[in-house]
């Protein structure tokens, strides 16, 4: 028997830094680290030199000085006497407003279009394919401009709404679509309306509790509760009772035609409508494709297996198909929401005052602080998208197939 001994231990040689896989990665990383440091140092050095040449410094005190400009679309009160910081906040809220509303509408249209594209009806499937291809293959900016042009140039002027005019209000004289914007009823919150809203929120929480209880009960005893009917009742009855018991605290202020324009109500600007509709329509085409591929991704055997077990079609959809399809659908859906949020910066094209137009636009132009302004703007978008994508990662880790 020959002795099996360890290979004689090699002593470290300089060339091993390059030719030995154990040390090479260290060498590469050290070199890369040096290059990155050098690059960053050069960047900072250049910036400092350039700022010194221009006689500027980096400071964020401009945020607390008076903005001096008006914002026509406000979610919180703002006047030109307020600070740049508040202007930025108004812009950020406007971005979030259009993003949230856009995500909701885009999901609704997208799911609708995606399901219809799979329809067995030849004509409906073709129409939806045409819609999706049209939306996906043309730039979003064109859609924004088209919707804006339609809203401003193809809609009637307020004076056409006079007696004998060519235009009329819709939805029982409550909504007026004009070239100066869409006028909708404005809710007025009187005393006691807080209680009504609180009751609504409580009943929504109650519905979730009910669903939990019902599921638990079914798992334990096999008995089913009429969840849908109970939740509808919980949603409607307490709020309605409270609304009338408190003497109708929430009323609607309807828009009325005044001298040259509508008065009262809530004026939704065309810029907002154009951005919102265009973003939703455009994103909905992508969502439609995601929904379609998600449904197709569930193999037919799953449906057949469920039927073989004697599960009813709607329960099959609910218990077998949807959970599997959603695993495929949700991650790309959320990244579409992210895209929509970022695309809302195209608000610039129609003059909607979002974060880019206030913080990264007028404020930067007025104060000359483009470095700080764009940095803050970038950080805002970055934080928003990191929050959304970490929510997605959280969801993903929950539904991921557990493999080796």
């Amino acid at each position: 028997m020959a002795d099996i001994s360890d290979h004689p231990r090699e002593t470290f040689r300089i060339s091993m830094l390059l030719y030995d896989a154990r040390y090479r990665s260290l060498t590469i990383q050290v070199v890369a680290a040096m290059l990155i440091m050098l690059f960053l140092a050069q960047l900072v050095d250049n910036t400092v030199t350039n700022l010194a040449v221009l006689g500027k410094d980096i400071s964020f005190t401009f945020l607390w000085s008076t903005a001096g400009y008006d914002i026509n679309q406000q979610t919180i009160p703002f006047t030109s006497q307020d600070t740049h910081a508040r202007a930025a906040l108004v812009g950020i809220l406007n971005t979030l407003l259009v993003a949230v509303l856009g995500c909701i509408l885009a999901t609704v249209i997208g799911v609708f279009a995606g399901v219809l594209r799979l329809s067995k009806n030849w004509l409906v499937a073709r129409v939806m394919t045409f819609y999706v291809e049209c939306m996906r293959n043309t730039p979003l900016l064109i859609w924004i401009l088209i919707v804006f042009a339609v809203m401003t140039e193809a809609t009637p002027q307020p004076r056409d709404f006079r007696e004998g005019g060519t235009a009329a209000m819709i939805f029982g004289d409550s909504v007026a679509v004009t070239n100066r914007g869409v006028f909708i009823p404005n809710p007025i919150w009187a005393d006691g309306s807080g209680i009504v809203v609180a009751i609504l929120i409580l009943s929504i929480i109650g519905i979730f509790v009910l669903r939990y209880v019902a599921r638990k009960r079914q798992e334990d005893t096999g008995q089913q509760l009429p969840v849908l009917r109970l939740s509808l009742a919980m949603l409607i009855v307490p709020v309605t009772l409270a609304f009338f018991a408190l003497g109708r605290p929430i009323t609607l202020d309807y828009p009325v035609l005044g001298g040259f324009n509508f008065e009262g109500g809530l004026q939704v600007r065309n810029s907002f409508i154009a951005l919102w509709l265009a973003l939703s329509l455009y994103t909905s085409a992508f969502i439609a494709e995601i929904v379609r591929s998600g449904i197709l991704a569930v193999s037919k055997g799953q449906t057949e297996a469920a039927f073989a077990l004697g599960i009813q079609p709607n329960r099959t959809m609910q218990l077998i198909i949807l959970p599997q399809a959603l695993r495929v659908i949700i991650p790309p859906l959320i990244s579409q929401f992210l895209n929509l949020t970022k695309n809302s910066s195209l608000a610039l094209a129609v003059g909607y005052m979002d974060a880019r137009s206030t913080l990264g636009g007028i404020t930067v132009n007025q104060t000359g602080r483009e470095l700080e302004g764009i940095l803050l703007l970038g950080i805002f978008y970055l934080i928003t998208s990191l929050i959304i994508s970490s929510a997605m990662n959280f969801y993903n880790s929950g539904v991921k197939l557990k493999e080796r």
Partner: protein
Amino acid sequence: MTSTSKVAFVRATMLPEQAPPPGVAGPVKWLRENLFSGWFNSLMTVLAIYIVWSVLSGMLPWAFNGIWDAGSLNECREIRDARGLESAACWAVVNERWLQMLFGFYPTDNPVLARLFYAEELAAAGGAEVVFGGGFNATQQVEFISAMKDDVSNAAIFVFGYWRPLAALALLVVAVAPVLYSNLPRSLLIFSLVYPFIAFFLLWGGSVWLPVLVALGLLATIMAGRYASAFVGSLGGLIVSLAVFAIIFMNPLGAIGIDGLFPLLPQLRGALDGAMPWGLPYTASENFGGFMLAIIIGTSGIVLSLPLGIALALGRQSSMPLIKWVCVSFIEVIRGVPLIVWLFTASTLLNYFLPPGTTFDLLLRVIIMVTLFASAYLAEVVRGGLAALPKGQYEAADSLGLDYWKSMRLIILPQALKISIPGIVNTFIGLFKDTTLVVFIGLRDPLGLTNAIRATSEWNGIYWELYIFVGGLFFMFCFFMSRYSMYLERRLRTDHR
């Protein structure tokens, strides 16, 4: 055998096949199955027919009754009223301005146009030497050219006035074809490599020696590295090629104060320009515009972002923590911020980050930004492909003893890229569509030009026609790309279903 005798009749021959009853064959069957299979389906069909009809009945008469020959929107409306039409598209604006929307303010090759289509007037004015060679002052020249353009048809100006961008586009098709379709001869790929230099020369013009020398310099860098690595190993080869690159394109001795000797390129160029002053008139990037700009930015972004995106994806999967960390932060930061903000950074902030006194072309900055942006998205798509490969493929490559680059090149990337084709093409389509955003930093993209046209007094108030034209052009390109990706998926499919 008891019952056979009782059978009265047994048919011995087959009856001829009968036609199926009406309603279960032919178009009626198709209609029944596809459009009217139940009350809900029928309702949907009726609804869809109503929607299609109401859209088409508005659109088609409008489009086909369109007026092609008018000087302004008012003139269009007069013609429409004179014809007694309810609505009519005013295609005249497209007819008049399509060249502008395609090329922006890219200059036409006026001497060529004058010689071909305006020869008599050119001779009357004293010949090309006088008009374009210095005999005319600027005003006279402008008057002569505008008179000529009124006289020459748009189609002629398109073909002969813009022959440089058109040639660049035609050669682009030739250069891209061998990459897209693998049944073309592989030797055409050499042309694909040379193409960027040809396109640069055709589009920007200037001395022919600049692109030639840059191409030769890059070739020399690569060849020197290859040749040297045979003798002194791969690291030595890398150092040699870096040294060759440095003496051709940079001034390595500048740090110790010796100027004038290096870089070699401008010196060679000066000598060649003196001996053989060949070239085309120079066109600055500011004049580029229209759909041409979208194609230039889109193509360069696509070509440059693919290798960068793959590198980032590999970096993100790397086992080296530093490399991984750098790639992840690059990808997340780029993806987290909208392209518009990056474009503003490129146009306003980049001057802060560059060494004092450097300026470079806005178009180039935009191309770099768009490339970086698309590469971050591509990296995520490719990462998905890499993650989708079964672990066994990586282990198999390792067990064959392949090193990292070989295993990536031969085993992992071909499969991973195949899986990610749809995502890659979608990113490219997105990049191409996003080229419209350059309008916000002052480049003249097609949409910016439509705004300019709508701002003129003649065409104020027109929008559908222009947007349909621009949207249709984008649709054509993007639709081709998406169909190509489907073709590629089909062709590369190796599993048998």
